[in-house]
């Protein structure tokens, strides 16, 4: 009994409820006529799509900057990467790599500035990150209209100015990772090998980083700033490194997202992109000051599982689509839980 209570305390009641809810969805799904193999395949594809953006939460949580509600900065860097890549006209893997590399360059640049700013406002990062993210998205809205892009696939035809709100990557690098080494089991199940491999590879790189000297220093700066400082660690530098990493992962994440989704979403598309990633890592078991790769993996699976399964099961059983409302309540409820809990732990 004590063991069970300890487990629920560690695991957290909301997390337990979400897991049970997802299991219920999976068990009822076949009974109500939902095609389980295709749903499972959807879940895996979505994990590949979103995983890296969830991963982007880890560095900043570890360095004590909290939840990166300003992930949209990284997303903007990635959007610049993919639009510039399409502008160059490169297709296939080359085009994809150009998008990734240009995105990384912008990510590093944005991340550096963003990190500098966050260093000045220690303790108030999360709210500032949110609004820095929001206002950057709006500033980039102006840029999407004004920037001198020429590629006819991207600009408005008939007298409009600037880029379209959604740009298809069909014919450029759509599904380039999803289809890499992908295999089918049965009729409806597709395993997106490439995307998952890239996700795991990037996760491995992050894992390795946090076991190197530099990565340990970043974690130390987050765990106990005064102690880290006394051991000769430059805290501000560690925090900037973590913010840059987070932003660059966000940039990579959105490009991977686009190749699977098939479209580049500009203008206010990135406005709320940080929130699902934040919710996912928290559902996985992370808190405002501690996150591991296990949290990322579990969280992405659970969150994307719920996102995929709720509409299908609810539509089949109740004939109503409440999935949007459930998503809003679950993800924000989880963030709220994390925000109110940590202070008690940290005293």
């Amino acid at each position, binding site marked *: 009994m004590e063991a069970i209570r300890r487990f629920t305390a560690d695991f957290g009641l909301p997390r337990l409820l979400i897991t049970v809810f997802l299991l219920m969805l999976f068990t009822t799904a076949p009974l109500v006529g939902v095609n389980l193999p295709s749903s499972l395949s959807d879940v895996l594809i979505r994990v590949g799509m979103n995983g890296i953006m969830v991963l982007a939460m880890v560095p900043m949580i570890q360095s004590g900057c909290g939840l990166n509600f300003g992930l949209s900065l990284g997303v903007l860097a990635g959007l610049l990467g993919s639009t510039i890549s399409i502008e160059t006209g490169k297709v296939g893997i080359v085009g994809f790599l150009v998008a990734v590399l240009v995105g990384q360059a912008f990510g590093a640049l944005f991340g550096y500035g963003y990190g500098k700013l966050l260093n*000045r406002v220690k303790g108030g990062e999360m709210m500032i990150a949110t609004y820095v993210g929001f206002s950057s998205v709006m500033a980039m809205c*102006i840029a999407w209209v004004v920037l001198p892009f020429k590629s006819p696939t991207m600009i408005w035809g008939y007298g409009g100015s600037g880029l379209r709100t959604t740009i298809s990557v069909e014919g450029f690098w759509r599904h380039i990772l999803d289809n890499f080494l992908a295999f089918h089991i049965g009729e409806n199940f597709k395993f997106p090998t490439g995307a998952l491999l890239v996700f795991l590879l990037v996760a491995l790189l992050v894992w390795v980083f946090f076991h190197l000297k530099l990565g340990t220093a970043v974690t130390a700066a987050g765990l106990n700033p005064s102690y880290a400082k006394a051991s000769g660690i430059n805290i501000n530098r560690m925090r900037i490194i973590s913010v840059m990493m987070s932003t660059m992962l966000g940039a990579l994440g959105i490009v991977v997202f686009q190749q699977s989704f098939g479209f580049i979403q500009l203008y206010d598309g990135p406005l709320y992109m940080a929130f699902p990633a934040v919710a996912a890592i928290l559902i996985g078991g992370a808190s405002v000051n501690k996150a591991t790769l296990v949290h990322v993996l579990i969280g992405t699976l659970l969150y994307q599982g719920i996102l995929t399964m709720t509409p299908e099961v609810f539509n089949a059983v109740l004939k109503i689509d409440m999935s949007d409302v459930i998503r809003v309540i679950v993800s924000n409820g989880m*963030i709220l839980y994390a925000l109110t809990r940590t202070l008690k732990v940290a005293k």
Partner: protein
Amino acid sequence: MSSRLRVFFIDNAVAILITLLIICALPVAKLPASFLLQEILMRLGRDTFLVLALLLPIMAGMGLNFGMVLGAMAGQLGLIFISDWGIVGIPGLLLAMIISLPISAVLGWVCGVIMNRAKGREMVTGFILAFFMNGIYMMIVLYAMGSLIPIINPELLLSRGYGIRNVVGLDGVRQAFDNLIPLHVAGLKIPVFSYLFIAAGATLLIWFRNTKLGQDMRAVGQDRAVSASAGIPVERTRILAIMISTILAGIGQIIFLQNLGTINTTSSHEQIGMFSIAALLIGGASVTKASIPNVIIGVILFHMLFLVSPMAGKNLIGSGMLGEYFRQFVSYGVIALALVLYEWKRVTQENAARATLRGGGAA
């Protein structure tokens, strides 16, 4: 003296910047003065009460109350009910307020309790709580209304038989407050009663600041530990500050919507927190200090920007959308800037305090 001037500029950086912006954009926008004046008069009546709702939590040291959206939801529920029952005019609005009152009181209490568990990060908590409650609100309005909660008027319902339509027209109560005391000066319509209502709210707030509870709030805002040792129930005082703020936001939303004349069931409340907070900050308030003049100046400047920037964008570059993006950029940016200035000041002060402990030398 020069340092004093510097402090003045830093404290009012946002307000000064926005004023300069508007002054630059005004000649470009080429809006007729009478139109501009009429719009500002109208919008003062529409928004001021909502912004007033933000004052108490700032005084109690809880920062900008992003959770005021909860009150707005309660106000909208009240309006949906009176539209359903077909109660029109002033009685309708008053009834809507009475309905919203207990709802926003409960929501405010919940908000206060949650914020007490997240001391030091009230703002981000309120911000997320608003999203969370929006989910619950949607569940009530889109799924429970018309199925579990009886709705008499079928015209309010979606064609599927339950759930409220996206747009609810408030024909019965449209501008009932604004038109109660009709007054036209030089061709401009002045919503006298709305102004009186706002004035009453402001007077009440001024009076409240000097009551025992108001003083307690100010003390809690200054220093929680000292207040607690002086026997002030800190947590209770904080909850009360948020409850009153939420109730005022509910009433404010009803005033706001009676002026607009329609409710966007799923979105009218969402932007309210952002708009009101941006307005207050543009008026020269900070995270720790806000006054009634800040509210009024803020509403005027914010709406000037609102009116002028799309037109200026259109005339300058030929795209109204650009001006609109710019305005949104400014609204978000102002909040970001105010938060940065506040945290920056706090961090600098903390470092300075630590330096004096170390022996007075500047770190």
